[in-house]
């Protein structure tokens, strides 16, 4: 007799039901949509909705639906062709930016239960891919200079004279006249310059200190440079108006930027690698900027009007005290004295000296920080080769992000206190850091996938899966008859389970991912073939039908396990060492191995048991 206990049958039914449920979102069609939002502060409202609707109808696009969502107009189309016409129409509206996207509309009850469709990779929906490398050398050099400056300061404060001090092969070498001086310096520096590990050595016959930068410091610099660049890039991409952009780090020095729906890479490239900077300027303390501006009179000599974040006028000196490239670090924190939020800023040597000179004469006066960035302010239409082309207008935007009173004389390190909130302090520190020239980025990989190629890839990929699958199903049915049918049911559930797991993991479906699914289908058959061939063998050896089923499954089990575990090892290695598409392939392959073992062994056994398990006088099997 071949029986599965009730719990096993239940488990199988539950797993399969869950699989079907969570794979379900993927059968809803993806509709092409356009997301439209304002470039600056143009209204996004019913009137705009009405206007877009009229414009679309004028261009003979009829199958569309418009809706408002969080300052964005979502235009849903039936076909990609309509979507592209729609993009042209909407792009003609001045003051708005639009992005192409694909959206799955799934019912509420499904999304509430956590169901979601797999998102499509760039290769399937079209878009631009950038791999950007952060120039860590620049970031490290900056830090080296800062440490050098700090060291000089510590030594001169302690009145320890040195022979020479310089960086040599990533080591800070300080030479002294005597062992006594070196010893004294060692004592001071060890406590105050914590980024460096100092050792007493004799270099070129002179008593010296050799400082090696701690690996933690280097990791820290790299981490900060990367984080800062990611946040800057993310801000810019968001400002550009791309639907669902991906900005993430890859390894310790690279950033992946994926912009679905974008087709013109050159334009966005300008935005991505432009650098923001900042300036410290003196505030005019004699005139009232507001009333001056109101009266329409020009700024007093040596001063210029700036605006703060709320658009209020500020009068600042033409002279820049310290600029972004002289700022080495900015960190948000809490003020020891009043517990309020603050930002502590570190300057390099040059900046420190200028700040010292300035603050010496200006205690009690105000100093402001100006943030400069290239931003999109509008669009213009120009004629290129007789064709009208739309171009974005960029402008250097200067905003006063902070305005504070100078409370004392300072040089390389100072705090900005009295900030509104801890959140504001964090934001200010981030802006200061991104305005500092910490580490420029360089594009090391660029890839553009056209929307038609993406559509082509989906269609072909999907078609090859279906054809391959059907051919295998037919073969199994003809070769193994009843058992083939059982295997086919299991195989179908296998694909459903893979899709369900991928959807639950929030995985992105890529072309290699589809290939992985196809390959798993081919290989999933293997477990069943092993079992069925074993059953046939048992029958040939004269075993009873029921006995053959039992022996077939039992004997094939260790073979299946061994074979799958070795493939699994290969998949894990692929995952650990692969990047991007290879990782996607490895994920689907390993999920496929697990689900195929479940379906090929447990699911088929349950069905076979249900069909044959109760027949006591079973003479032959349809195999």
């Amino acid at each position, binding site marked *: 007799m071949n029986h599965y206990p009730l719990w096993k049958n239940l488990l199988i039914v539950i797993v399969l039901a869950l699989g079907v449920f969570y794979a379900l979102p993927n059968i809803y069609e993806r509709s092409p949509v356009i997301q439209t939002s304002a470039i600056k502060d143009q209204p996004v409202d019913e009137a705009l909705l009405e206007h877009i609707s009229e414009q679309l109808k004028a261009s003979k696009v009829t199958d569309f639906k418009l809706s408002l969502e969080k300052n964005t107009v979502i235009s849903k189309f039936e076909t990609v062709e309509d979507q592209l016409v729609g993009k042209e129409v909407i792009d003609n509206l001045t003051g708005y930016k639009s992005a192409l996207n694909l959206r799955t509309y799934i019912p509420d009850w499904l999304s509430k239960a956590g169901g979601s469709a797999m998102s499509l990779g760039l*290769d399937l929906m079209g878009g631009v891919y950038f*791999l950007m490398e952060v120039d860590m050398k620049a970031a490290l050099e900056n830090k080296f200079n800062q440490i050098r400056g700090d060291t000089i300061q510590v030594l001169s404060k302690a009145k320890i004279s040195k022979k020479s001090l310089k960086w040599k092969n990533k080591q800070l070498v300080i030479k002294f006249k005597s062992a006594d001086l070196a010893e004294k310096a060692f004592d001071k520096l060890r406590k105050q310059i914590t980024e460096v590990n100092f050792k007493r050595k004799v270099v070129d016959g002179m008593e010296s200190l050799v400082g090696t930068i701690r690996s933690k410091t280097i990791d820290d610099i790299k981490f900060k440079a990367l984080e800062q660049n990611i946040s800057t890039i993310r801000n810019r991409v968001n400002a550009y108006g791309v639907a669902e952009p991906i900005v993430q780090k890859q390894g310790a020095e690279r950033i992946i930027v994926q912009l679905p729906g974008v*087709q013109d890479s*050159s334009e966005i*490239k300008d935005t991505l690698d432009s650098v923001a900077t900042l300036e410290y300027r003196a505030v005019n303390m004699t005139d009232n900027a507001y009333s001056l501006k109101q009266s329409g009179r020009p700024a007093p000599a040596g001063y210029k009007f700036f605006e703060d974040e709320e658009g209020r006028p500020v009068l600042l000196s033409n002279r820049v005290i310290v600029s972004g490239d002289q700022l080495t670090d900015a960190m948000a924190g809490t003020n020891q004295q009043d517990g309020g939020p603050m930002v502590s800023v570190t300057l390099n040597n040059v900046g420190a000296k200028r700040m010292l000179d300035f603050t010496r004469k200006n205690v009690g006066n105000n100093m402001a920080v100006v943030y400069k960035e290239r931003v999109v302010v509008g669009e213009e239409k120009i004629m290129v080769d007789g064709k009208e082309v739309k171009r974005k207008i960029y402008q250097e935007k200067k905003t006063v992000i902070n305005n504070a009173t100078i409370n004392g004389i300072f040089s390389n390190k100072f705090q900005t206190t009295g900030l509104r909130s801890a959140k504001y302090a964090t934001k200010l520190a981030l802006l200061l850091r991104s305005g500092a020239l910490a580490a420029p980025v*360089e*594009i*090391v*990989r*660029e*890839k*553009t996938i*056209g929307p038609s190629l993406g559509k082509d*890839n989906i269609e*072909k*990929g999907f*078609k*090859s*899966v279906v*054809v*391959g*699958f059907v*051919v*295998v199903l037919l*073969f*199994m049915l003809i*070769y193994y008859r009843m058992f083939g049918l059982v295997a086919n049911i299991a195989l179908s559930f296998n694909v459903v389970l893979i899709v369900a797991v991928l959807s639950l993991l929030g995985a992105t479906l890529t*072309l*290699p991912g*589809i*290939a992985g699914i*196809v*390959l798993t289908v*081919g290989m999933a*058959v293997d477990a069943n*073939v*092993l079992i069925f061939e074993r059953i046939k063998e048992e029958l*040939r050896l004269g075993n009873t039908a029921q006995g053959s089923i039992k022996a077939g499954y039992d004997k094939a089990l*260790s*073979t299946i396990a*061994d*074979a*799958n*575990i*070795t*493939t699994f*090892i*290969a998949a*894990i*290695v*692929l995952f*650990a*060492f*692969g*990047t991007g*598409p*290879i990782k996607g*392939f*490895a994920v689907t*392959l390993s999920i496929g191995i697990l689900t195929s073992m479940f379906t090929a062994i447990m699911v088929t056994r349950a069905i076979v048991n249900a069909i044959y398990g109760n027949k006591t006088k079973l003479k032959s099997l349809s195999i």
Partner: protein
Amino acid sequence: MNILGNTKIDFMSKRKFALIFSVMLIVISIGSLVVRGLNFGLDFTGGTAVVVDFEKPVELNEIRHVLEEQKFKDAVVQNFGSAKSVQVRFRSVSDDESTKLRDQLKVIVESFDPNAKVGKGDFIGAQVGVELVEKGSLAILYAIIGILLYVTMRFEWRFSVGSVIALVHDVMITVGVFSLTQIEFDLTILAALLAVIGYSLNDTIVVFDRVRENFKSLRKKSAKEVFNISINQTISRTIITSLTTLLVLLALFFIGGAMIHGFAFALIVGIVVGTYSSIFVASTATLSLGITREDLMPVEKEGTNLDHIP
């Protein structure tokens, strides 16, 4: 239904032919790798690739000729998916240079055929390519080490050496075919090679599993006979599985589109070679290393010793 019923083929006696055949294939592969090398794709070489769509099928040599005249000397020109699409690959150091060269290429191609559509280029820095090669080779090495350890643990070291010989054989011949055909070798092909390793092993392990089982049950047979019986017992499974996997891969190859063409091709070659090697290479290598029944049954040996203690 049965394709193969009770086969009784003496595979092990044919191992000399198999050896000559395999050595020949490997020599050709290495020879081609030395002489022609691999047609490395953008992933590994770095540079820029641009796809140009023409309205009619074009002669690749003509395009090569035009490009060579116009300072694109090192450019690689090859078909991309169809006779109407051509991929041009050339060296470029930075993204800016890549954009500039792409614009120049556009002018050249349009003077050659005004209706040609020059696509957006893919650019990849050379350093990224070098890293990918390093990582890829490491991945294959680690996969092989992991597998060696697992098979040694579950079977015996001779089996593990036999299976590794078989999969090195498979990888070399597959890479050799890529060298001979000069089909572009990119990152997805590397992924396919790893899948081939997985598959080839899968096949080999199934045979070995049977060998281990038969060593226990068929006490009176010689090692050579045990291997022959085991391969014959598993041969129909080996062929059916390879067949179903091949069916799916053929679907991918013919319908899947240009981007997975190479991937499917690598797997097709790998699976054909892998099926052959699991029968003729892995088993013969293990047998030649002198595997005996006792190697697989250390536990039972102890048991018999105990019986003799009075």
